[in-house]
């Protein structure tokens, strides 16, 4: 199933934040949304789920299959949210409830959306925890978020998002709060899940490195508009919009080459083991 955002405009308190955003998410593809803070990346993600701040007005269309999410009545929208469209937030320390066990947070929406019984939901939750590679999923089920590390918590947040087999996953800066080594694992997980489950993923990130690693298509936003959109290689290697070029130029690199001729062993044989 595809998610089509066309001419999305959002205004808060009379001020227009998004000036006509067009995006298309396809099953099994990761669509990256880049841009600096305040450019409207997060607002676009929130608009899909109807989570815009109080008093915001949205116009345009967000089509999921043959439904328009913007004009859907609240009751039906609730069926879509968490069920067909799920979201992973930036900071797993705040997006998980600190006083409920991981199991409780994993099964609550499953039982609601999928009408599963207690035991079925539990079995599915343990499967999910195993799928996102949480060690000892049976025990993890009964633990609380503070008993896990940041990377593990983000994996759990991803498991919660995947619980009702969504078609669309919106990941808002999912690795920004994590260490690079942990980030690598979460990115691999996201990419793998996208390929395996045919998810349409919207990856919101400011990190063009992350973008380059997992996204198939990249869109760049500036001041509430998409200024450039296209396949990853084109946008990152031969950017056509001057803003994309400034974004790329402002990176603190030429990229590092940790595998350049070095000490007694080169990086490539480290990988071979």
């Amino acid at each position, binding site marked *: 199933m595809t998610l089509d955002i066309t001419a999305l405009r959002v205004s808060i308190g009379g001020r227009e934040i998004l000036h006509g955003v067009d995006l298309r998410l396809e099953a099994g593809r990761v669509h990256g949304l880049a841009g600096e803070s305040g450019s409207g990346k997060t607002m676009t993600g929130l608009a899909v789920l109807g989570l815009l701040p109080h008093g915001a007005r949205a116009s345009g269309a967000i089509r999921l299959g043959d439904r328009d999410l913007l004009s859907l009545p609240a009751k039906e929208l609730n069926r879509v949210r968490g069920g067909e469209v799920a979201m992973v937030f930036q900071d797993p320390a705040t997006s998980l409830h600190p006083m409920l066990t991981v199991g409780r947070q994993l099964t609550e929406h499953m039982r609601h959306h999928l009408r599963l019984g207690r035991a079925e939901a539990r079995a599915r939750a343990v499967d999910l925890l195993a799928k996102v590679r949480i060690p000892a999923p049976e025990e993890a089920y009964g633990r609380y978020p503070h008993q896990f590390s940041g990377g593990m918590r983000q994996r759990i947040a991803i498991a919660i998002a995947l619980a009702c087999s969504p078609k669309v996953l919106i990941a808002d800066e999912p690795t920004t709060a994590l260490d690079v080594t942990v980030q690598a694992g979460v990115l691999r997980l996201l990419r793998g899940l996208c390929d395996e489950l045919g998810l349409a993923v919207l990856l919101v990130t400011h990190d063009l*490195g992350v973008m380059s690693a997992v996204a198939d298509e990249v869109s760049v936003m500036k001041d509430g508009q998409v200024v450039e959109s296209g396949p990853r*290689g084109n946008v990152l290697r031969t950017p056509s919009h001057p803003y994309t070029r400034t974004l790329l130029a402002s990176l603190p690199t030429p990229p590092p080459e940790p595998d350049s001729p070095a000490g007694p062993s080169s990086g490539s044989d480290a990988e071979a083991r």
Partner: protein
Amino acid sequence: MSLLAIDDLVVEHRSPGRPVVRAVAGASLTVAPGEVVGLVGESGCGKSTLARAVCGLNPVTNGSITFDGEPVTPLGLRRRKLTGIQMVFQDPYASLNPRRRVGDQIADGLRTARDTTTSPADLLERVGLPREYADRHPHEFSGGQRQRIAIARALAARPRLLIGDEPISALDASAQSQVAALMRDLAVESGAGLLFISHDLSVVRLVADRIAVMYLGRIVEVGATAEVWARPRHPYTRALLRAVPQPDGLGVLPAELPGDVPDPANPPGGCRFHPRCPLVMDVCRDKDPDFGPVACWLHEPK
């Protein structure tokens, strides 16, 4: 002569009913005046504990910290001698007092330095904020602006060593490199040393003259930034650098370092990195490589 010398520092956290956690287990590091040293490592490796110990916020179990030739003593409740070390904390939403005007908070620092000529507004100007902001309260500012105020407050005390404990990780991506560069410029300008702690390697690379890589309470590699970046020698440093995704448009997933950071309450014997090291040898399991600048048996000094 170095400004700050940390020698074989050990810091332990004790809590009742739990095993003793050795957060810093024999780390040595120096910072010279006007030098920027970046300390990197994964979360839980002891970087923040090391910074807090340098400020006297954590008692030292073993080893020594000398600042300007004098040992650093634990911070007293009311007054301290060592105002030469100032710290900028991670979260500017928590480190500024919400009920006091920012100008008054900066004035605290000026009073410590017995500075009667500078006004808080001057310091705001130095960190790139308008002078009239001194009358405002912290809630009127964005995260990046608050961190600038925290930096102004630390600089007001005329420190000779500035410590930033993840000063940019709570900030928005676009503000991160600006604030990091600002800290560097202000510290170098005033001739102070800067110990910059962060888990973001690309930002540390931007600001630091030297990089120290920490793993599980130990400093495993120290070297000039360009040198470490171009030719990382310790397998852990290599793994860290390889995990940074590159914006090359090729779609290469960054390399994953297998396993988790072991529990510092029960560190593995021998080299602390050996269970995760791709190049592990027999000697690594038995003997701890306690030498520098690269604490790895592959780089044993002759």
